[in-house]
């Protein structure tokens, strides 16, 4: 019974932080308090949070290193661009509907590719997933960098060579090689991002606190013991990886529909590492921490802009300080004691810091 309460409190804290942040930021954005610079970060923050929550399922809950989350984001983003292009061409332009279909398609495509990748990789024990996802992230960027794709009345036109798609005059180019996606009719907004974060959180928490969630963590903690209580580690690790990839795809779709143009190189190895940093700093398996860490670390570089050339230096120092603080046993104990002292206050505090 006690445990049940704990579980509900964990997820309740996350939900309330997300909702409080959304309300506070919406008001600030509407009243102009936030300024254009920070308002433009609202949707990207949601994207990174969704991608990081997904990745935490893989790295924190399942305990497998994944170095290619940006690859799954790019799959989602470019799937969204193509789907949106096709929908627009057929006269479906309602932004909310287009975005919904794009996110669903991005999720499915990334999840499916994750599942395909997991078949050979997760049978092996060891760090093979890290290597394969790393390679996948690099390959996908390079492939998309060479794709030319357009749509006209004859359907999709596709080329690997150059921009000679030989389209009818009414056609439009959707992806043009190194330039990436072009002419996207943006459809993302903060409310959609907020809803996506909330849905991702619910999915992840509901899996975590279920039969398969326990099995995933059991395989992480002790694979042999898990097998002797009848748990198939390959199936459980696949589930965690596919959820992670699918949420990466959803995040990418939201991202792709937020800009009228973007290049594939946006989703390079650096982005994968950045999202991994959000997860590690937020705490492995800790979704609330991931949300806070992602928000802070996306906003921080902007806040440090006044430092001009010293900006990234200070950013690095801040990262190191956070790592020391969150990994320091003594400080953690104190924080725990504080939280126990005034239970429930933690969430309100976190929200106001971010707001």
């Amino acid at each position, binding site marked *: 019974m006690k445990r049940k309460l704990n579980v509900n409190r964990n997820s309740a804290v996350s939900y309330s932080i997300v909702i409080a942040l959304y309300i506070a930021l919406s008001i600030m954005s509407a009243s102009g308090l936030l300024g254009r610079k920070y308002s433009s970060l609202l949707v990207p923050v949601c994207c990174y949070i969704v991608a990081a929550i997904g990745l935490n399922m893989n790295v924190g809950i399942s305990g497998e290193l994944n170095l290619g989350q940006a690859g799954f984001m790019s799959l989602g983003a470019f799937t969204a661009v193509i789907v949106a292009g096709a929908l627009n061409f057929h006269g479906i332009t309602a932004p909310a509907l287009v975005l919904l279909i794009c996110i669903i398609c991005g999720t499915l495509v990334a999840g499916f590719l994750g599942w395909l990748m997991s078949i050979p990789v997760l049978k092996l024990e060891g760090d093979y997933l890290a290597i394969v996802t790393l390679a996948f992230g690099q390959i996908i960027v390079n492939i998309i960098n060479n794709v030319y794709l357009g749509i006209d009345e004859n359907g999709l036109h596709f080329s690997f060579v150059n921009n000679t798609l030989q389209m009818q005059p009414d056609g439009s180019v959707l992806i043009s090689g190194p330039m990436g996606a072009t002419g996207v009719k943006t459809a993302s907004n903060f409310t959609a991002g907020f809803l996506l974060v909330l849905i991702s959180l619910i999915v992840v928490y509901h899996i975590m606190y279920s039969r398969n969630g326990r099995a995933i*963590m*059991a395989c992480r*903690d*002790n694979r*042999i013991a898990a097998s*002797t*209580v009848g748990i198939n580690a390959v199936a459980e690790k696949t589930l965690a990886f596919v959820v992670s990839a699918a949420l990466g795809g959803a995040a990418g779709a939201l991202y792709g529909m937020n800009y009228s143009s973007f290049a594939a190189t946006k989703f390079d190895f650096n982005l994968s590492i950045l999202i991994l940093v959000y997860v590690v700093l937020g705490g492995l398996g800790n979704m609330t921490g991931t949300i806070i860490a992602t928000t802070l670390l996306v906003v921080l570089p902007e806040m440090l802009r006044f430092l001009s050339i010293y900006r990234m230096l200070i950013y690095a120092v801040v990262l190191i300080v956070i790592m020391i603080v969150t990994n320091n046993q003594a400080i953690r104990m104190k924080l725990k004691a504080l939280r126990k002292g005034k239970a429930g206050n933690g969430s309100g505090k976190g929200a106001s810091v971010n707001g």
Partner: protein
Amino acid sequence: MAEENRQPILEVQDLGIDFGGLTAVNNLNMKIYPEQIDGLIGPNGAGKTTVFNMLTKVYQPTRGKIFLEGKDMEKLNPVEASHAGIARTFQNIRLFYNMSVIDNVKTGMHNHIRYSNFDAIFRTGRFRREEKEAQKEAEELLEIFHLSQYASLTAGNLPYGQQRRLEIARAMATRPKLLLLDEPAAGMNPQETEELMAMIREVRDHFKIAILLIEHDMQLVMRICEHITVLNYGMLLAEGTPQEIQNNPEVIKAYIGD
């Protein structure tokens, strides 16, 4: 007990395993009967844990056969061996250290909980009903092993003796027909050992299962086991009732001699 009239739950025929050039177990024959507490004893390195690893299919035997309720286990992997009804604990405790005590037990119920991921994500009635049942069953198991007060504690923070008991509770959560305990009393003080023996008997009486236990504490073995198998250098040295084993000169020699 009239063993001849009963079907053994487990039958091992000419079982053997080699590690490279080393023959760890050879020509082992054993029968385990329902609702009986059996002992597997022998000096260090005799091959006792290796026998457990073969019975749970963590190791694939090189020779011989294992039958569980008359069914050949040759093709099974550890997951399927668990489904078939064999559960175990480990000599070096293997808990899910970052999970709570009660979640360790619920993890053992993995195959009795049947709801899908869809049920979990949408928290359907089926999810709530089965989780409630799992919660109840887990609480009952914790009760038996005197672990109720630690239910929400992280398993890694449990004292050593309680960790061993939690491992048994987790094994029991799989609803096994045969429970294998690898040195369940290791590292326990006399009082903890006494409590453990009562729990093992209670488990057998309550769940009507067969138990095979490896133990170095002869006191415990002689008092709790109804039948004992002695291994030496991977081979069967003797088997019989505790009295027979106690008075067997070969056994005495293996333990004291050399």
